[in-house]
């Protein structure tokens, strides 16, 4: 029997709200429970998978970039992609194309693709449920 599928709609950009991390934790949980997962990244969430994110040092912590090991959400998303393969489920991450263009964050990590609301509707039709995580 094929896995059931869930769709998540994310809106928050990285580093602005705990919702971004919570959303990724929900994706992790869904993947580990054997769900195929669709993600439609809308508005600022298109920045989550931006390939040009970089780590930096932290002078307050007294750590260089390597030892600070500052999270870049793109790496968390890449780890979720690996997890999905290990769990034999699918993680399909789509960035809203127009949202990406207007924010200048069109370059995403491999495996993240560009899409439109038509793709979101296709996701929703194929899923047992959809969760929208709104921004503030």
């Amino acid at each position: 029997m094929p896995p059931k599928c869930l769709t998540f709609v994310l809106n928050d950009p990285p580093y602005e709200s705990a919702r971004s991390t919570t959303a990724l934790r929900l994706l992790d949980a869904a993947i580990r429970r054997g769900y195929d997962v669709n993600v439609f990244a809308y508005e600022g969430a298109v920045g989550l998978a931006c390939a040009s994110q970089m780590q930096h040092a932290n002078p307050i912590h007294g750590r260089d970039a390597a030892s600070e090991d500052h999270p870049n959400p793109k790496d968390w998303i890449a780890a979720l992609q690996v997890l999905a393969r290990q769990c034999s489920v699918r993680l399909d991450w789509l960035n809203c194309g127009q949202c990406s263009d207007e924010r200048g964050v069109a370059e995403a990590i491999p495996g993240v693709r560009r899409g439109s609301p038509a793709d979101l509707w296709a996701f929703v039709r194929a899923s047992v449920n959809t969760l929208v995580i709104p921004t503030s």
Partner: protein
Amino acid sequence: MTKRILQILTRGYRGTLEEQDDQVLWLTHMLHNNGADTDVLLRGTASNYVVRGQDASGLYFGDRAQTQPPDIANEIRALIRKGVHVFVVGEELRARGIRRNETLEDVSYVALAELPALLRGYDQVWQW
């Protein structure tokens, strides 16, 4: 059977000048155009979207003027023309001092007490 979706929009005017529309109403148009059966419930500050006569024109920085200001009321009229129900809560309008004769035609009014029944009529509820 297609899913019926109610989209609840609670915060109005979030980035609408930059985006030149409301992002959730825009998405609703696009989903509807792609075959989705979806309606909208406006709550909170988004309730103000049904007020007639709003004018967001005139924004400029230096000599750079905005040429296509948002016209949220028109977006709502267009949704209604397409057959999308746009609901607003009567008590929330009254709390904001908005009279019915100040609002757009063909908006559907619901009372707070009617919301549970309204939501039960949909397969999914998306809270924005």
